[in-house]
């Protein structure tokens, strides 16, 4: 029932134009995150890993709104975005399990997913780091005379770091084609936004840069896409940057085994009632795109596919030890295989 069972990022990305594929991808993201949680418990994931179950509509809404040759920067909470942008479950799970099959060959891990083919720069483990980098990508696009844009995805807690402020100002003054997407999932680590941020809507901070600031419903993929479309169009026609705040929620804790006991009782349940997958499934059912019982079938199919991907990963080898020194500089053994963003 999945439309694209390709592992080729660009094919997966193009497939997102299809409504059903959008749902499929959201289900896939959820399934991958759940599998990763299990892989973590099984000892296959080292360090830390940051799940984004509950935030799937943001990922898919962004990915379907931009072109594969637009550039995206993102944080460690990037599994869903990577999958939505086109990275295959095998490449994502593979990276998180440190296998050669991973999108960074196992060198990066959960916090560092990457796929130049669909514009995804290595996701950054430092809060705020992606915002200035997106500004630079936008500068490059403009310098090349292309109408490509850059998107930077970050969390609510990241809106308090200096790089946020500097980047928004920088992009505004240079009218750069950037869309800043703040995923407001109400928490930065274990801290509720109210305890770190004295305003309710991050979006109002756009006013400090004379930039549009938009609040969007991050649980509804169509609302996400709608907000994105305006901002993307504005950026493409040279109108400058936009700040979009997606109101969303992460179902799990911040990372690894965080049980998220700091959340008030009932909060998670309330959000589960607005589950992004259910919202889209219901809409597609209404539009007769999804058959009755179709969602369950989809979930089962995807779950199988993710399980197959997981097995493929677990069967695949760890990177060769030579990799340690193969990609440090141009002098390294790996040599230059530089991606050309402007070949098309």
């Amino acid at each position, binding site marked *: 029932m999945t439309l694209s069972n390709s592992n080729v990022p660009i094919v997966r990305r193009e497939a997102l134009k299809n409504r059903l594929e959008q749902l499929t991808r959201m289900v896939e993201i959820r399934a991958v995150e759940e599998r990763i949680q299990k892989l973590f418990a099984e000892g296959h994931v080292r360090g830390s890993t940051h799940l984004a179950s509950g935030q799937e509509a943001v990922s898919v809404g962004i990915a379907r709104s931009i072109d594969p040759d637009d550039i995206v920067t993102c944080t460690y909470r990037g599994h869903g975005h990577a999958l939505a942008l086109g990275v295959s479950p095998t490449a994502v799970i593979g990276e998180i399990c440190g296998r050669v099959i991973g999108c960074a060959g196992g060198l990066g891990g959960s916090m560092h997913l990457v796929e130049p083919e669909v514009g995804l720069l290595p996701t950054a483990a430092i809060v705020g780091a992606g915002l200035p980098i997106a500004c630079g990508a936008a500068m490059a696009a403009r310098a090349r005379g292309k109408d490509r844009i850059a998107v930077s995805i970050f969390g609510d807690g990241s809106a308090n770091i*200096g790089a946020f402020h500097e980047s928004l100002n920088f992009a505004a003054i240079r009218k750069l084609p950037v869309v800043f997407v703040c995923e407001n999932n109400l928490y930065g680590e274990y801290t509720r936004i109210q305890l770190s941020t004295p305003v309710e809507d991050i979006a109002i901070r756009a006013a400090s840069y004379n930039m549009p600031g938009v609040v969007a419903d991050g649980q509804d993929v169509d609302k996400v896409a709608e907000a994105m479309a305006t901002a993307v169009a504005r950026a493409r026609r040279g109108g400058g940057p936009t700040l979009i705040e997606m109101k969303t929620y992460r179902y799990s804790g911040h990372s690894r085994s965080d049980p998220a006991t700091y959340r008030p009782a009932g909060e998670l349940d309330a959000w589960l009632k607005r589950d992004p997958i259910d919202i889209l499934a219901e809409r597609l059912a209404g539009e007769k795109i999804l058959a009755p019982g179709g969602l369950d079938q989809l979930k089962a199919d995807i779950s199988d596919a993710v399980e197959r991907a997981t097995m493929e990963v677990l069967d695949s080898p760890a990177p060769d030890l030579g990799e340690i020194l193969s990609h*440090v500089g141009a002098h390294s053994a790996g040599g230059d295989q530089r991606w050309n963003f402007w070949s098309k």
Partner: protein
Amino acid sequence: MAKIWIRQAVLRALDDAMTDDPSVIVMGEDIAAAGGPFKVTEGLLATHGPERVIDTPISEMAFMGAAVGAAVCGLKPVVEMMFIEFIGVALDQLTTQAATMRYLSRGRLTTPLVVRASAGAGQGFGCQHSQMLDHWFRGTPGLKVAVTSNARTTYGLLRSAIEDPDPVVVLEPRVLYAEREEYEFDRNYRIPLGQAEIARPGSDVTLVTCGAMRRVALAAAETSHANIEVVDLLTLWPWDRRTVAESVVRTGRLVTLEEAPAGSGWGGDVVSSIAIEAFGRLKAPPHRITLPEAPVPYSGALEARFLPSPAYVAEQIATLVSTNKPPLPWWRNAA
């Protein structure tokens, strides 16, 4: 003796320091209500209250700088940088502001603050969360740098750092937090900053190390045919020249074991100083065991190879002692 988690030593040091000195405050991300990302500040909020145990927004520049201002004005802030890499967005406040405060006021203003941070590799946190980065601080006039290596040194160094009248960086190898050790707390125990310790006496080789590498060095010494003296530097700046020099004069051989690539490791300064001071008195060339010049890999197999193991250290030392020539590192052999 009780078995404790090493992270409890951090907690006890902070707790005792706060009890003994009401001007001590701690701040950082999620260190109060949540008890710390590494659970090393658990319970402090309940004991010492929200004006002294402070959760901050994700704003390293703000809270690092606030620590500077608070220190100048009479508090003793202990700042947690969750991962030492995060100070990459706030280095100015520590090395340029805090470290020059005394100088620019001719001794009238001082910044008795501590930056504690988890540091180092070994757990698969990837290349942006696994470095020691002591080279960002070492040799900055006005700043001290210490590295903990077990429960006792954690307690002893932290207490001294908090009592120090000048700014101190304390790096805590993250890999140690979750290890258990026999240790009985003694709230009067201190390790004076600037003082190394001989972790294991020996007669053939002086192996200078610190942090998580102390255990690697000790394990290597256990299996080695050479009788290895292990010196734990404890303070990387200013480091204890006398202890190292005296040991080297005794053993005639100097090897460093560093959790950093050679280009930024502290061994450059240590080896050069000893090579100068003990010129003509060494039986063999000094040798540095370091990390390769590469980011820290994520994948478990790679990270295990990346970090020096006891067997590798023992082997390197055996080659040095038997050939009197510095052995090649594994990555040059392999290539």
